[in-house]
């Protein structure tokens, strides 16, 4: 897929309240740069991420969706991220099965102390999406901006 000129990807990052959201905060206070087109949505736990949220994000114009949660073993609710891990694995695999580009979906475990990792992940993910170009396979034409 060719890179569209002037393409500014919209990236939705679902961040767990306890680790990754704080991680994002830390990367901000440390003045680490990550692209402004990453839109963070705070969720109580990575396990809260309903597969429907992922699809709805794509519908409403996201070009990539990333879930950030506590590292396995560190979940505030003990086990939430373990369930999320299975769910997202299966969901991403199904999306891949349906021909939706694998690179558009990702899970990354980011702790509250990993501000640098958060920024790096977002930079890297944005780059991947830049290469993939606009989401065309899982978009709602009615929401297209141009």
């Amino acid at each position, binding site marked *: 897929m060719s890179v569209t000129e002037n393409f500014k990807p919209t990236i939705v990052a679902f961040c767990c309240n306890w680790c990754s959201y704080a991680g994002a905060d830390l990367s901000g206070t440390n003045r680490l740069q990550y692209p402004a087109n990453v839109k963070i949505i705070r969720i109580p736990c990575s396990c809260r991420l309903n597969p429907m949220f992922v699809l709805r994000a794509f519908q*409403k114009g996201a070009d990539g969706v990333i879930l950030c949660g506590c590292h396995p073993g560190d979940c505030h609710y003990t086990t939430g991220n373990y369930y999320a891990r299975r769910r997202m694995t299966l969901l991403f695999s199904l999306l891949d099965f349906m021909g939706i580009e694998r690179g558009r979906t990702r899970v990354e475990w980011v702790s509250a102390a990993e501000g640098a990792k958060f920024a790096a992940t977002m930079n890297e993910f944005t780059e991947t999406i830049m290469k993939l170009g606009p989401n065309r396979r899982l978009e709602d034409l*009615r929401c297209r901006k141009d």
Partner: protein
Amino acid sequence: MKRIAVENLQSLFAAVSAKKQLYIPADDSAGQAKFTLWSEGTVLTEKLNTVRSAKDLFFPQVENLVNFKVSSKKIEILENRDSSEPFVVFGVRACDCRSFDILDTVFLSDPVDTYYQSRRENGLVITLACNRPAETCFCGVFGIDASDPAGDVTCWMDKAYLYWRANTERGQELTKSLSVLEDCDESSVDAIREASKQILQKLPLNDLDLTDFRENKLLDVFNDSAWGELSESCLGCGTCTFVCPTCQCYDVQDFDNGREVRRFRCWDSCMYSDFTMMAHGTNRPTQKERFRQRFMHKLVYYPNNNNGVFGCVGCGRCLQKCPIHMNIVKVTKKLKEGMV
């Protein structure tokens, strides 16, 4: 009457298509027939009929009504009608052709539905007589002659030729513009019609008799004790209503993309649990009431308002497609048991 050799059908389609958009029944990727926009290489199906009826072309499953732009307290109304270009639909069977009459009484009665109206005005219907009706066909019950369907143009086909008869002014106009057609004698189709009639007479559902529904009181049919049993295994899906050529209920919904609101309508089904759902509940709480509504509408309510014409054309789609094989024929026969 005109004709064209079957091996030249593609040149006929090409000629029509050069003038207007042409839809013909062609096989889809699952091997079932579907009205398809003709382009070079689209081949006429050998199936008797399409899964989705010809109503789709006049009353599509989804269509835009109007757009709104909302900004703080102001609203702007923006035209957003799907454009309707003149088109020709070829290969409509007699049953589907009759269904247009039924849809017309709904959509073209005052106040006229202009979306449907413009498609009707733009659409030229070419019917195709049935040579090999299925066991599920019962259009004859409604006085439809599948060997001589209506429409702007009627066609018959045998192994060698497609015969073509224009019935309306619009049909004649199209005929005149098609040089690929050659003249032939009216009697050319007699043999085809005769053969077709022979088969039509043998159809297993010919004995279906609906006259009792005209004579019995609305409330007696409504209160028949058989409804519970008939509907007990109904899944509440919308298959019957969506493949039905005469079902026309619709829903109006808004879609907000953050910049504007698109108001569209889409098919709805009286079989769905939310069909009559209001803030304080629904007046048809179980599948029995929803199921009954569909058949009462076709067999009693619609005829009551339309000189006894039934809201069914006997195309047999619901017989073939219902997941649990409950259908208007079974309902009719069961209800008749309780009628005097």
